[in-house]
């Protein structure tokens, strides 16, 4: 089997090939590293590739297999990890200059679980700085390019994780989703992304953006692969107080059964129509019809408070972020900048100079917003009110789930936009997450599966499914059913129709968007 063939396989297929001894973990890992060497100058999806570490981990799996040791079913299938999860001995920058050169002394629980399952870690993927953004344009190390069109954004903040999967630089990857950072990149790259129930996957070692919203999850090419990965990383962690004690929902079984007969599908009135690109809406409607044809029932539900979701999110997120990002102060690790023109700077002056030089504009914007929203005299009006609306949104979800087993919407209102298109208009950028944010506010799980290509631009569109907390298995049942019907219609996967990145011309350099100047 050629290495090109290996990078075309799903993670589940690779697991079977490895288990049967047809290929070695070293061959699979080397194939993906080779692919990365070939195309990453075009995608810029990785911030750091760990060839040596990945191959050593692969060899270890091969050795154990030869020795007849019991291995995890996915042992030897390599993986990429978003650069917001700490990896012992591997750089972790969160896409920021302020952490340039920092090597964490410990592994995130998610990373620990990947290693325990024998998954070689290929590298760390690009992202918007501290996961703030919907395009990776806010990465301090330059944006990732969409494998479908190198002039366009791959979504964000986890554009790197979706792009490595869509460009076959990794069979699967870990992303994190605070307001849509797994699901929106999945939608615009034609891949699958899942945000599990809040507390379903440990946040220990996930560098916090907004603690009450962040959740790590799978980025894959198929629904089954996402379920397999979800099972590896999910489950209670005593190191994370907000982690849910209880078994991981039966996600793999649900993905394999792909059964939606009798499932009540709720279409959220507020998450479609106006503001949604015509082709996106069209593919959404067709997908709903597919589910109906597969035996599902459709109901329409209304969640009026969703109108306030974006405003709520942009008070809670910056508030928590302003506090979470306070630790980056040049005192113990990371960047240290000495202020210019000051003879004997104080610790405070070094902190200020470092934070000024080390954080990008979007990060500063949100720190300022959050600091303001938490200030005495404003707390009740901003943070306090936002928490109230957040409760309303959770209540409306609960009411909607009385009427429907799952809720559905387009994942993102548009297909991938061009670089720079929304960079000067933060509100336009924020609006890209309008459909994904409510799930984070309520702590419920969501999935994005490819629903086709928008007729007007030929770019991927995504279909979002939301389920009640700890009913993550429903996402997989509906997602797998839709995937099966669409792939039957298309005669293969959507990504099978993507251009080969390697053959695309190297694009002109994308202008650096991350500035340290005012």
């Amino acid at each position, binding site marked *: 089997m050629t290495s090109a063939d290996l990078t075309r396989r799903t993670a589940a297929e690779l697991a079977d090939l490895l288990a049967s001894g047809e290929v070695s973990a070293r061959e699979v890992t080397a194939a993906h590293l080779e692919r990365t060497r070939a195309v990453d100058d075009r995608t810029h999806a990785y911030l750091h590739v760990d060839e040596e570490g990945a191959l050593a981990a692969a060899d270890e799996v091969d050795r154990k297999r030869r020795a007849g040791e019991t291995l995890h079913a996915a042992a030897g299938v390599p993986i990429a990890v978003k650069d917001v999860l700490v990896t012992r001995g591997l750089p972790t920058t969160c896409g920021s200059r302020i*952490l340039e050169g920092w090597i964490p002394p410990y592994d995130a629980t998610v990373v620990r679980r990947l290693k325990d399952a024998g998954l070689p870690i290929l590298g760390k993927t690009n992202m918007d700085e501290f996961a703030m953004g919907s395009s990776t344009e806010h990465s301090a190390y330059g944006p990732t390019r969409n494998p479908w069109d190198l002039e366009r954004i791959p979504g964000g903040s986890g554009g790197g994780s979706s792009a490595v999967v869509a460009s076959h630089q990794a069979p699967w990857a870990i992303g994190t989703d605070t307001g849509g950072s797994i699901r929106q990149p999945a939608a615009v790259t034609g891949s699958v992304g899942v945000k599990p129930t809040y507390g379903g996957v440990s946040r220990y070692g996930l560098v916090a953006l907004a603690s009450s919203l962040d959740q790590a999850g799978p980025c894959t090419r198929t629904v089954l692969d996402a379920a397999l990965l979800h099972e590896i990383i999910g489950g209670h962690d005593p190191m994370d*107080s907000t982690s849910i004690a209880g078994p991981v929902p039966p996600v793999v079984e649900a993905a394999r059964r792909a059964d939606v007969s009798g499932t009540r599908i709720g279409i959220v009135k507020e998450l479609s129509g106006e503001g949604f690109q015509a082709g996106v809406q069209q593919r959404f409607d067709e997908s709903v019809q597919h589910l109906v044809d597969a035996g599902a029932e459709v109901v329409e539900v209304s969640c009026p408070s969703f109108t306030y979701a974006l405003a709520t999110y942009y008070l809670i997120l910056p508030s928590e972020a302003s506090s979470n990002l306070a*630790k980056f102060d040049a005192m113990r690790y990371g960047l240290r900048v000495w202020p210019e023109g000051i003879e004997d700077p104080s610790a405070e002056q070094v902190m200020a100079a470092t934070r000024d030089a080390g954080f990008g504009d979007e990060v500063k914007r949100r720190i300022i917003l959050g600091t303001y929203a938490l200030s005495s005299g404003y707390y009740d009006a901003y943070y306090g009110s936002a928490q109230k609306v957040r409760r309303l949104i959770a209540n409306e979800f609960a009411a909607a789930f009385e009427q429907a087993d799952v809720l559905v919407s387009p994942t993102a209102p548009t297909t991938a936009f061009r670089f720079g298109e929304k960079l000067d208009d933060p509100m336009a950028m924020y609006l890209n997450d309008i459909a994904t944010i409510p799930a984070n506010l309520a702590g419920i799980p969501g999935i994005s599966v490819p629903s086709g290509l928008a007729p007007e631009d030929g770019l991927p569109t995504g279909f979002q499914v939301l389920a009640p907390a700890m009913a993550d298995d429903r996402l997989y049942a509906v997602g797998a059913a839709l995937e099966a019907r669409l792939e039957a219609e298309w005669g293969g996967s959507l990504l099978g129709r993507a251009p080969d990145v390697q053959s695309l011309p190297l694009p002109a350099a994308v202008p650096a968007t991350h500035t340290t100047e005012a």
Partner: protein
Amino acid sequence: MTTMTGGTAASAEAVLDYDEVTSAFDPVLGLEVHVELHTATKMFCGCPTTFGAAPNTQVCPVCLGLPGALPVVNAVAVESAIRIGLALNCEIAQWCRFARKNYFYPDMPKNFQISQYDEPIAFNGWLDVEVPAEHGEGTEVFRVEIERAHMEEDTGKSTHIGGLTGRIHGATHSLVDYNRAGIPLIEIVTKPIVGAGERAPEVARAYVATLRDLLKALDVSDVKMEQGSMRCDVNLSLMPKGSSQFGTRSETKNVNSLRSVERAVRFEMCRHGAVLSSGGSIVQETRHWHEDTGVTTSGRVKSDAEDYRYFPEPDLVPIAPSRELVEELRATLPEPPTERRKRLQNGWGFSDLEMRDVVNAGLVELIEETVAAGASPAAARKWWSGEIARRANAEGQDVPTYAGVLGVTPAHVVELESLITSGRLNDSMARQAWEGVLAGEGTPTQVADARGLELVQDTGALEAAVDEVIAANPDIADKIRDGKVQAVGALIGQVMKAMKGQADAAAVRELIIGKLT
């Protein structure tokens, strides 16, 4: 009369005579006490809490605030907090949260402190303390109302190098030790204490002392003020007599001994009095206490800009102690210190004065142990408050600590007493034996053996000596025969001398009287 305090001209501030202050003003006190719990591990991680370890050796990603690390609440610390709350007669929250207190400082790894804000674990309590009676002799109970007791984590410890005073001003660089970062703290805050009048300094001291005893009895903290495991901030304001409108207060930080608490309150009362009576107004500020000179100096002025931007800690789940747990913990509470003292005093038969001396000298536990080991209360009090107390005081230590250093135990006192009651030693010999014990020469018996301390048990030798002395003093012997028994003293002295002190004076007396009457 107004005088200037000592120190440099810049820091000298006028103070008013104490009696003048108390005749014109009523003090309002507020005490904030931080107590380090002596749990085995830190508040939010598994690091050990041992005092005095090499810098930055008791740290991990969590207490260093490394990116990605998350806190997990120490359940033992929560139970300790609840027990403290219950012992302070507080209500225990049904549901409460931690909050983040945001401010930048290098010894705070995350640049926020996990604390509690508007939802403390315990609130609305009181603690009765004993102070000298307002009129006349004896003591009376003064009730201090408790506002709240809440949980938080300690910060690291900064050491400023190169400055004159160890403070950051003038320092060239600072060293930070994060071993202390994340040690569980309980902050106990009183409601404003009014009505203490001229006894305010004593009330403050008695409160901190009683709180210390209570926390010790609860076995939740080392409560060593000199090591910083118990730290006290003193808030004070004055209001003109007859007014109920509180004045502007000053906050004197880190007043870290009982004596200093009393002195700091007194000093601040005199300083406030001088400012107010000369028509000035008090600046709301924090102040530094100077143990050596007994004065406070201005620290940082409190301003509106100080905004900690508290919000509920999103990395932790709320704490909702079940009522069953609270009752279980209530059942583990020790006897309240004041009740315990009453009970012990009655059992021991000590006078009020004797008991107060014992309490002030910190001897209650030691006497209790010694009595439990078999000594009489009187002997226990006598030996622990004698020579060893004098020496401990000279060393600037308390008796229990000093006894620990010397290796002197309650068993030694029991043994010493039994040597007396068995008739082997008389009182002055026992003092010699005790000195030997304090000098590390061994147990009382070993010391007595080594020094040859022993009353003469040979009645033949004693009788011979008595007979000799009677024969040598016929006049005195006649007086005694005539019924003037008090004259026996002169003969006892001569017998003791003849016996070189190795006789029991009481036995000698009986022997002489027996022979002459």
